[in-house]
C-alpha cells in the first residue's frame, strides 16, 4: 500500500510539473505579457515549491522556524494571487468606466468585510491571526471573483474563455482552501498529511483548468472584447435614446394624469 507521505510527495511532484507546464504555456502563448501579475504569481508559486522542498531537507532547523518560514512563503503566494485577481478584474471590467467604478468600490467593501469577519475569529491570538488572515484573504478573493462574475453576467460584459478559466481556478482553490482549513482546523495536527494532500489536490485541479484554457487561447479572444459601438455611433445613439426617453416619459406622465382624471 502507498504510504500517505509518498502519495503527498507524488502529488507535490505532479504540482511542480504542472506549474512548469503552465509557465511554458504562458510564455509560449505570449500570455505573460497580457497577464503579468498572474505570471508573477505562478513564478512565486514555483519558487515557493522549491523553497519549501529545500526547507524540509534542512534537518538542523527546529520545527517552529520551518513552520514560520513555510507560512511566510504561503503569505507571499496569497498576496501574489490577490494581485493576479485584481489584474483579472481590471482586465474584465475596467474598459466599462462606470461599471468598473461601481464594481471596484464593491470589491473593496466585500473583501474588507470578509477579512474583518475572519480576523475577528482569531480573538487576538497571533498564531491564529496569521492563519485566519490567510483564510480571510482566500475567502475574500473567492467572494470578489464571484461578485465580478455576477457583475459581468448581469451587465452582459464579455468574459473570454481564459478569463473565465482564471476566475474559476482562483475561486475554486480559494473556496476549497477555506472549507478544508475550517473543517480540519481543530484536528489539523493529527491529519496534517491529509490536509496538505487535499490542498494540493485542489491546486492541481486549478492548474489543469488554467493549462487547458492557456492551451486553447487565441489572441483573437482579446481582440473580440473591444467595445462593439464606435464613438460616433455611441454619440448618435445617446442623443437618439435621450429624445425617445423624453417622449416616453412625457407620454407616461400624460397617461397618469389621464388616469387620475378617470378616477
Amino acid at each position: 500500500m502507498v504510504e500517505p507521505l509518498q502519495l503527498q510527495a507524488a502529488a507535490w511532484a505532479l504540482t511542480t510539473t504542472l506549474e512548469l507546464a503552465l509557465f511554458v504555456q504562458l510564455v509560449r502563448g505570449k500570455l505573460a505579457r497580457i497577464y503579468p501579475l498572474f505570471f508573477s504569481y505562478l513564478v512565486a508559486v514555483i519558487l515557493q515549491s522549491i523553497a519549501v522542498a529545500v526547507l524540509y531537507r534542512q534537518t538542523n532547523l527546529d520545527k517552529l522556524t520551518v513552520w514560520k518560514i513555510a507560512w511566510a512563503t504561503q503569505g507571499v503566494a496569497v498576496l501574489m494571487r490577490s494581485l493576479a485577481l485584481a489584474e483579472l478584474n481590471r482586465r474584465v471590467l475596467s474598459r466599462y468606466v462606470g461599471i468598473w467604478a461601481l464594481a471596484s468600490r464593491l470589491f473593496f467593501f466585500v473583501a474588507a468585510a470578509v477579512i474583518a469577519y475572519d480576523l475577528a475569529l482569531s480573538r487576538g491570538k497571533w498564531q491564529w491571526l496569521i492563519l485566519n488572515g490567510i483564510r480571510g484573504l482566500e475567502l475574500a478573493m473567492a467572494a470578489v471573483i464571484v461578485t465580478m462574475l455576477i457583475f459581468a453576467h448581469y451587465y452582459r460584459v464579455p468574459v473570454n474563455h481564459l478569463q473565465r478559466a482564471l476566475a474559476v481556478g482562483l475561486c475554486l482553490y480559494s473556496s476549497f482552501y477555506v472549507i478544508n482549513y475550517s473543517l480540519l482546523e481543530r484536528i489539523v495536527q493529527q491529519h496534517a498529511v491529509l490536509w496538505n494532500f487535499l490542498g494540493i489536490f485542489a491546486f492541481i485541479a486549478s492548474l489543469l483548468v488554467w493549462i487547458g484554457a492557456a492551451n486553447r487561447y487565441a489572441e483573437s479572444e482579446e481582440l473580440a472584447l473591444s467595445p462593439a459601438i464606435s464613438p460616433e455611433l455611441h454619440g448618435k445613439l445617446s442623443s437618439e435614446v435621450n429624445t425617445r426617453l423624453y417622449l416616453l416619459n412625457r407620454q407616461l406622465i400624460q397617461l397618469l394624469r389621464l388616469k387620475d382624471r378617470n378616477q
Partner: protein
Amino acid sequence: MSLPTILLVLFALLLVTLLAWALRPPARPLKPALDVFEALSRPRHCSRISHVVQALQPEDTEYLRETGQVALMQTLRLQRRRIALNYLDQLQEEFEELLEISRMLAVMSPQVTGMQEMERWKLSVGFAVNCAFLRWKLRLGLQPFSGFTLLSNMATDIARQLEMATARIAEATVRGSESSAPGNENIGSR
C-alpha cells in the same frame, strides 16, 4: 466546530454555487445597438393603460345588468380580464426591455451610481411581485386598479432613471468630442 466557523464554510459553499450560476450563458443575448433604437421607437404598452383600466371598471358593464343581460355582462367581464392579463404580460415584457436598455446604457455610461443600480434592482423585484399579485387579482375577479397605478408608476421611475443615464452619456460624449477636437491639446504636452 463553532457557529462562526460553520458560517464561513457555508459561505464558501454558497460562493461555489454562485460561481456556477454566474458562469451560465445569459438567457438572452445583448441586443445590438441598433435594436435598442428600434425597441425605443416601438409604441409603448403603457399608452394603453387608461383603456385597460376603463374596461375593467364595473360601471362600464353595469348597464347590461340593468337591461337583464347578466350572462353577457359576465362573459364581457371575463373577456376583459383575459385582455388585461395579456396586457400585463406585454407590460412586463416592456419593463424587462427597459431594464435591458438600462443595462446596456450602464455598460456605455462613464458613471454608474450604486444607489441607482440598487434602486433599479429593487424596482425590478417590486415589479415582478406586483405583476404576480395583479395576475392573481385578475384571475380571482378582484378590482386591480391600485396595482395598475403602481406598475405604471414603476415604469415611469425606470424611464426617469434611463433619462438621467442617457443625459450623462450624452454629456460625456460631448465632453469627449470637445477634448478630442483639434486645438484642444495641452500646449505643454508632446
